[in-house]
């Protein structure tokens, strides 16, 4: 009577094994597609190219411009999106839907179209500085910055902690700085990192606005030295990876809640490819 169970156990393992094997086949093929070009490009560039990259004329200027723009964009984006998101969550929950839809809009408008319109209407003095780009990057960054912050807010019981804070006598700004923000560090960090990654990689608007940010420099430099350009590309990819690794590490450390990293990255969409 009790003897048949071993057979039951064995029977179970067969289909699982078959599925497991097939799973690995897919993943290995995918890994090859993603890693081979990286490897090949790295080989193409050669070791010397990385050194040559730094010393190439224009490298530092372009990189510095990109960094400055990243800082400006991030600062404005956070200063704009955080209070707005908190305000809507607290006072105007009905507008949340609208806000979400509004933040989808920049995704619908290709950067190339946006820059066309911007160059049309921007006032002269502003147009002649690269900071116009910084201001427009805020529009591009909005979707993922909002989502990252929103995800963080949703995980909090915002209403309750704000009411608790107010009942204990804290002013609005204090509540924002000392109660809300500390609880949102993951969301804020994600928003920051995603914005920075986007700005560092943004090509479309910069090139059409005729400013030499790092990606633009890479393309123009291609004429002179292909290996250095490829080295620069790999460098740029590496920086992106590093910067995103930051969120993951901090994100997973902060909360063992699985599924969180996914929402952050879903917000981290494309656009910085353009």
């Amino acid at each position: 009577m009790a003897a048949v169970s071993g057979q039951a156990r064995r029977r179970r393992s067969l289909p699982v094994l078959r599925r497991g094997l097939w799973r690995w086949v897919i993943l290995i093929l995918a890994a090859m597609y993603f890693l081979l070009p990286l490897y090949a490009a790295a080989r193409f560039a050669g070791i010397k190219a990385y050194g040559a990259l730094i010393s190439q004329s224009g490298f530092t200027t372009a990189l510095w411009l990109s960094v400055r723009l990243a800082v400006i964009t991030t600062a404005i984006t956070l200063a704009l999106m955080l209070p707005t998101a908190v305000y809507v969550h607290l006072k105007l929950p009905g507008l949340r839907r609208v806000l979400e839809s509004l933040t989808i809009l920049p995704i619908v408008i290709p950067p190339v179209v946006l820059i066309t319109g911007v160059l049309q209407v921007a006032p002269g003095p502003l147009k002649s500085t690269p900071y116009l780009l910084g201001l427009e990057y805020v529009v591009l960054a909005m979707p993922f910055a909002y989502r990252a912050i929103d995800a963080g807010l949703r995980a909090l019981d915002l209403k309750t902690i704000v009411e608790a804070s107010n009942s204990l006598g804290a002013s609005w700004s204090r509540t924002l700085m000392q109660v809300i923000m500390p609880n949102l560090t993951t969301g804020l960090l994600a928003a920051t990192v995603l914005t920075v990654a986007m700005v560092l990689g943004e090509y479309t608007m910069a090139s059409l606005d005729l400013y030499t940010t790092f990606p633009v420099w890479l393309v123009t430099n291609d004429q002179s030295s292909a290996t250095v350009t490829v080295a620069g590309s790999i460098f740029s990819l590496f920086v992106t990876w590093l910067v995103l690794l930051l969120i993951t590490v901090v994100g997973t450390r902060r909360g063992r809640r699985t599924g969180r990293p996914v929402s952050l990255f879903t917000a981290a969409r494309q656009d910085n490819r353009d």
Partner: protein
Amino acid sequence: METTPETGSALSAGNGSAGRSAAVASGAGIAFATGSGGASVALNGLTRRFGTVKALDGLTMNMAPGELVALLGPSGCGKTTALRLVAGFDFPDAGSVLVNGTDISSIPAAKRDMGMVFQSYSLFPNMTALDNVGFGLRMRKTPAAERRRKSAELLDMVGLGAQAGQYPHQLSGGQQQRVALARALAIEPRVLLLDEPLSALDAKVRLQLREQIRTLQQRLGTTTLFVTHDQEEALSMADRVGVMRAGQLEQIDAPDELYARPATPFVAEFVGVMNRIPGELRDKDSVRVLDMMVPVKGSSAAISGSRVDVLVRPEGLIVDVTEHGNGIVITRTFLGSVTRLSVLLSGDVTIQVDKPSTIAAAIPPGMSVSVSLPSEPVLIAPRAA
């Protein structure tokens, strides 16, 4: 090892057509068996380990055809694991599951012909209630017209005929579970498995559904295994209740037996309210408690030393108002026909005593009382720290 009462009617011979009688009682034209549709189920020495944890440790029990057995226990006791082994979603490391005498341990879940109701959210969201109920029939290649007819009848049976065209997200939790029940019954299973089906519902709905499930189950005579952590549910619905702990069955008995004659201290305390009164074991058969000598029920061999706790139900204690008794009433809680008195005994022990409310009306808090036991055998357990 007990043998099942049925003679071996082969499992593979259709779906238990042997012993079916045409429907009479319901008059709804459903070809359901009444009273003899269930199969007998035997679990023999089921063991299941997850890593180092033993979820099931040699579980053995039998279910008679048409019986509703509830598996009751705290979380982690293995009751859900046992259910899943019967259903076929998991396979035992040792032991076997027999239905009508045939070992089904190696048969995949899809072919076991059992109906299962999950805890929640098991209805297919892309199908209407009607289509959900008919799903099992569709898998059995029942022609569409008959499928629809049967599904509609079943929905009527659970009182949701009007909701046939609604989608799960349009139904309340209670309604969803009723549809799930209808869906499980549609395939005319020999065994019905219920995995805490009521725990996700709110109290009132839970009570209604409890009755409905029990009535339906009795009408159809389906052998049913019901897993729950709610003892009231188990006690009120089941023919027999099996109390589980740490992968083992502590006791399996009719509800009143379980309550009145718990076999182990765990069962005694898990089912109903149980008082623990410190006492001294005088010899193997008697214990000194509340200044009385009372015989011990069962064997005291497992207990080392003489310090024990005596286990008594609130209604098993005798309370009288006296000048200098051994206890003082602290609180008095009106529960309807019975009132529960919280009495502080000397030695800093608080016990609960139940008295009919008319009598308890004369025993307010602060009153000095004398608490004693009738001279019947009592359960004892090692003294709690």
